[in-house]
């Protein structure tokens, strides 16, 4: 139907010949703490994404408020909303245009699984971003609260650097 054939690069990005573990760690910590999202809102969740960037919740505390409109300059693609079959090639192109390393966050139920719009007989939507993108973090909700998005960012930082900003409060209670 609406799908176009857009060539994607499937070869892995060559890593450097000599690897420095310490430097890698440092760079990963840098990456984790300056996650610049792509200005890319699709639907309802995008409004909560904007609210997260604004005064009350303020994503900028984590260095993640630099919303870059150009995919070349961004690190995280926050898929915030329902992906339609008509939009899917566009999202794929945007993802391919982002330079490595890059991460994808599926924000909201629609981007995770199609959400309320996944029903028998539907003809328009893609059932989740992970159908065609490697999603790193899923943030559920319809739409997720801004706190949930912040939690998602912190989880992504944890995933990128392996370093936890704050200790898990529940773990300390259990032990």
């Amino acid at each position, binding site marked *: 139907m609406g799908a176009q054939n857009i060539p994607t690069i499937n070869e892995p990005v060559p890593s450097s010949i000599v690897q420095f573990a310490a430097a890698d760690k440092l760079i990963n910590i840098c990456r984790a703490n300056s996650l610049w999202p792509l200005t890319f809102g699709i639907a309802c969740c995008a*409004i909560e994404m*904007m609210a997260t960037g*604004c005064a009350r919740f303020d994503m900028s505390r984590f260095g993640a408020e630099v919303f870059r*409109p150009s995919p070349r300059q961004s690190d995280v693609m926050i898929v915030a909303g329902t992906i339609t079959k008509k939009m899917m090639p566009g999202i794929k192109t945007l993802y391919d245009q982002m330079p490595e390393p890059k991460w994808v966050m599926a924000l909201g139920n629609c981007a995770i699984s199609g959400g309320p719009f996944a029903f028998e*007989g539907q003809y*328009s939507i893609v059932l989740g971003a992970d159908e065609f993108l490697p999603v790193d973090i899923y943030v559920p909700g319809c*739409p997720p609260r801004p706190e949930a998005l912040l939690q998602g960012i912190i989880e992504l930082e944890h995933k990128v650097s392996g370093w936890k900003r704050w200790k898990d409060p529940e773990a300390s209670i259990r032990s």
Partner: protein
Amino acid sequence: MSKPIELRPDETFVVNVGPQHPATHGVLRVKMRMDGEYIVEAETVIGYIHRMHEKMGELKTYPQFLMNLSRMDYLGAMGYCHGHVLCVEKAAGIEVPERAEYIRVIMVELNRIASHLFWFGAFVMDLGGFSPLMYALQDREYILDMMESVTGSRLTYCYFRFGGLYNDIDDEFIAAARRFIPRMRKSMAKYEKLVTGNVIFRKRLEGNAFLSKEVCRKYGASSAVARGSGINFDVRKNEPYSVYPEFNFDIPVFHECDSLARYNVRMAEIEQSLRIVEQALDKLPDGPIMPAKAPKIIKPNAGDYYQAVETARGSFGVRLVSDGGKTPYRLKLRSPTYSNMHLFDETCTGMMIMDALAFMGSLDLVIPEIDR
């Protein structure tokens, strides 16, 4: 008139604004043929967030469909829910208690303020000013908090039920709303100083995108787009529904037909909405919020029903074609932005791209509401 855009072997070039572009507020795409910075012709391509609301309307029962309306327009969701609920109540002959109608009006108007605030911030951001968005969203958070305490969600409310409401408001909500009104008036004075009086802002908008009454009529424009062109049209006044006749409020109309007029209309509307909320809080009657014998299964009489309401974005209409079954036979949602956006193609011809995008901002677009 929207015509197909083709590549031509001359000096002009085609620019795709969107589907991912900061000015389109979502996934809207405008193909523009440009001659330098000037737009020779434009064709809007929509449908990138078509979410099958009308198909779902046919497949789902009436209560199941309630949640879709707030996903359709997430900024001013209450108004859309109101239209749908009113239409089904009219078709099924359900009586609504007076208190429920008052609370509905309070909610719709608060949501309208929230929606206009968001538009205000996003519009100024389109013009390159970033800080007003932050201020506007901070004010909006107060409304969202109030509404969340009653409805349980921040954006996508499922608060109205056929015949009444899901939840009654409490004294805390009323107190918060009363506190909010003077606070909002103070903020409005601040916005007036910071944005409306700004020279650059006025220079950019004065005379930008002239929309005549005739163009508005031919395209079926409503809301501030029509009212900024001197058309005195507001469904709340023109064909009063719910308890709106009980309130004393004005329709702000500006006759300049430019983007500044559209801006002024919306800013004046915030004040009018505050007035309505104030009066509704004063007059709020006691009583139940659901009718005593609310039907469990909604089965409207067979027939063809239409209900228009004034949402934050204009005249929203629900056409319900029922065959007497549990699901609608056909549910058409007439979205106001669909018509408002349609006149963009014709109007932006000959404008410079920055003016065209300022004009686009002044239309108050919510893309999922266009695409449904």
